[in-house]
């Protein structure tokens, strides 16, 4: 860490850039995804503003006068600077965000945090386990995997939602499935009698999902309890702990390790996470109120 400070000083030799200053981005499109989720598509106001990110990283999104929230980037890392953020309406800021219209401007800081180890999956099976909105931070990884599909073996998405109507990115998933690039298994908590798919928790699908446990990389994102039981099932099938990655969520006020809110045991979710290799948080995963 110290060498980075010296480097910064050497390059700027004066005032350092303020990491708390948002950059204006203009909304290109607001897309309702499901009943309570929507996607904002944004472009930087300054066209010269570059942006690169790795799958799994997040941005801090600022709504004028209302506040700032951390939201994972859910767009294609190969198609920047257009950024998409899918989020659920859950609080003051996301509620205000949903009211924003095409053409309005918001503030962005980022990208922050760790990322999914897509490169490490080369030559291996990939199991992606998502719960609800947890698919959003995983979609950039899917784009990356699909862009270089031949580098990987089987790619399996196990996806649990509350109802069939809560499925995100349905058309895209069906397109990938249609090309036999992606095996998808969906399960829902409840459904009308017309639903012919699985009903139940996503963890029940792991035992019979088509992957080779000895050569698999797993990426998990969803409610903490879902990830905890998914981890147990994956380990039971013989996936090594160091091949399991999960994305954690905590309150964040800064995204850069200053505010202290996102602490999860010894880690800061904003800079050590949000994507963690299982061994780094195994000791605290599942402990209550950490």
């Amino acid at each position: 860490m110290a060498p980075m400070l010296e480097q910064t000083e050497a390059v700027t030799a004066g005032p350092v850039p303020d990491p708390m200053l948002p950059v204006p981005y203009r909304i290109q499109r607001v897309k309702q995804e499901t009943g309570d989720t929507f996607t904002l598509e944004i472009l930087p106001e300054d066209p010269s503003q570059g942006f690169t990110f790795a799958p799994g990283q997040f941005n801090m999104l600022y709504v004028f006068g209302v506040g700032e929230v951390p939201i994972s980037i859910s767009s294609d890392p190969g198609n920047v600077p257009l950024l998409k953020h899918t989020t659920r309406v859950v609080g003051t800021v996301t509620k205000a965000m949903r009211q924003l219209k095409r053409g309005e401007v918001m503030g962005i800081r980022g990208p922050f945090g760790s990322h999914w180890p897509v490169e490490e999956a080369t030559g291996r099976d990939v199991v992606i386990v998502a719960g609800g909105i947890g698919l959003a931070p995983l979609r950039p990884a899917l784009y990356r995997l699909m862009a270089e599909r031949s580098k990987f073996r089987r790619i399996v998405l196990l996806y649990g939602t509350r109802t069939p109507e809560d499925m995100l990115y349905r058309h895209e998933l069906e397109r990938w499935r249609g090309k036999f690039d992606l095996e998808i298994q969906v399960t829902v908590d409840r459904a009308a009698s017309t639903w012919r798919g699985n009903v139940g928790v996503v963890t029940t699908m792991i035992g019979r999902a088509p992957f080779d446990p000895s050569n698999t990389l797993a990426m998990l994102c969803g409610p903490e309890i879902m990830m905890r039981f998914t981890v147990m099932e994956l380990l039971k099938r013989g996936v090594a702990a160091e091949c399991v990655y999960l994305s954690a969520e905590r309150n964040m006020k800064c995204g850069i390790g200053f505010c202290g809110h996102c602490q999860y045991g010894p880690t800061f979710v904003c800079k050590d996470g949000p994507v963690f290799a299982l061994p780094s948080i195994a000791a605290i995963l599942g402990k209550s109120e950490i």
Partner: protein
Amino acid sequence: MKVPTQRAKTAEPSHVGDSFVVEREHLEQLLQALVSRSYELVGPTLRDGAIVYDHLTSTADLPSGWTDEQAGGKYRLQRRQDQALFGYAVGPHSWKKFLFPPQQRLWQAARNGKGLQILPAEEQAEPKYAFFGVRACELHAIAIQDKVYLEGQFVDPGYKARRENLFVVAVNCGQAGGTCFCASMNTGPKATSGFDLALTELLQDGRHCFVVEVGSVRGAEILSAVPHQPASDADRQQAERILDHTARHMGRQLDTLGIKELLYRNYEHPRWDDVTQRCLTCANCTIVCPTCFCTTVEDVTDLTGEHAERWRRWDSCFTVDFSYIHGGSVRATPRSRYRQWMTHKLATWIDQFGVSGCVGCGRCITWCPVGIDITVEAGAIRASDSIKAPPDQSKDSP
């Protein structure tokens, strides 16, 4: 260095590591040397029944002849028998309020039509502080906050500017407070680095003077404006004796051996339920703590709705909101919030920053309204640690 027999009023140029003696009546010139170099002088002064850190204009503002009595949940000022300027321990303030202000405007934003303009906080020069009377534990606390704001991937520009401008006059502690345990934390009572000048107050046989150690070239330059003479062996020995006495009279102690592992394996210890019966989750401990750095942000708009500001202010992990994510707070119970605070101070901090988050200043003990004592809580967990540390292979123990 040879000790000259003759007392020179302005000695030869001083060097880092050298020690000199400045008489009490000349200390004023040290303060004025700093003021004349446009430093904003802050240090201990008496206010509202406590010794706080505030602006100083002269040595007359220092709490001459005062001391403090400190215990769990207790702080009282008392008169001393002498006119010592630094005859007390640390009070409710710490220097973080200057380097890392409790409230800061981060930026302003203006709406223009559908657009949005973000303006950095007003272009004002950061203050150039001289801290007068920084204790060893506090130097460590500053170094710990440096790790948060300067030594990670991101740098806080305001903190960096204030920190770079800073001049530090440290004071070695002539007596330990009732809740002090810096000796346990290896952070005091002697200032060993991170200062420009370090004073040890000598008061004996009618003589009142300060042994001054030079810690930087800037410190040497300031000292050159003040009458001083090389410290004699006797002066240095007396200073060492004072510090030795202070170290042996700590009001508290904390066994830090393997403390990280101790707390990591005791997340479910019944002592957390016990402390919950007493903790008011008032956040006093986090506010007085010189290393606690947590903040929150507030967004405000004016009446027109065209102008918004973002403010950062100190926050505390003892509030319910602190860990709020959609659906509720992660740490909803006081038990988990006290556990978070203490485990962070003494254990997770070590993984995060390579040092303990506790410097043994004792403020959290003194200013806890119910006198919860971090040394007692950690000690209680150690005393009934159900999982003993792995046996030491090197010893012939059963």
